[in-house]
């Protein structure tokens, strides 16, 4: 399993773009990068998944450089409701070993 490293916490003001970077230096060829969001007292929720370059959906964008040793989750114009813990997982296609790290606690300030 590829080890991931994320900042423990980040603060941002409402309306700003937030970028959370995850390092995964030993990512394997068939590994994908998946991000989850967890609000207090709720289960994690899938946000976005990518393999390379850029992926965008209605919630976020995921940027993955060519070497794939890191990835950046971008949340445009955050609001107070984006305050949550964000987890980066690196897992192989078809793998059932899905392990969470400590995540990044994002606090959005009014």
């Amino acid at each position: 399993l590829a080890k991931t490293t994320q900042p423990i916490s980040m603060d941002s003001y409402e309306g700003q773009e937030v970028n959370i970077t995850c390092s995964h230096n030993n990512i394997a060829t068939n590994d994908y990068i998946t991000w989850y969001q967890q609000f207090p007292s709720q289960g994690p929720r899938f946000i976005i998944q990518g393999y390379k370059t850029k992926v965008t959906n209605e919630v976020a964008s995921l940027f993955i450089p060519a070497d794939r040793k890191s990835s950046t989750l971008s949340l445009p114009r955050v609001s107070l409701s984006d305050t949550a813990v964000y987890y980066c997982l690196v897992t192989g296609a078809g793998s059932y070993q899905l392990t969470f790290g400590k995540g990044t606690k994002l606090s959005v300030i009014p």
Partner: protein
Amino acid sequence: EPEVTQTPSHQVTQMGQEVILRCVPISNHLYFYWYRQILGQKVEFLVSFYNNEISEKSEIFDDQFSVERPDGSNFTLKIRSTKLEDSAMYFCASIQIGYSGANVLTFGAGSRLTVL
């Protein structure tokens, strides 16, 4: 949108008692998980379950714990003789096999267990 349903939402029990936490996974999902999260800590993998048997378990999942799918819909986690340190949120999750890319977990809202 299909949901993973967990009951109870909160259970308080005395140390040494048995607890059963229940989960109804999404109907076309075939791979099931239990995770636990102690307050303020990370989400920890307990066990995965497929085809009516345990696929993988962590070192946390000792003889005190058991899982089963008794009726084809419910997926249960039993904790025998609860200890104070079992107090945590327990999350059930499931995966739809065949998803292209890496598998994606769908989590339930969790069951909060408080052991007194």
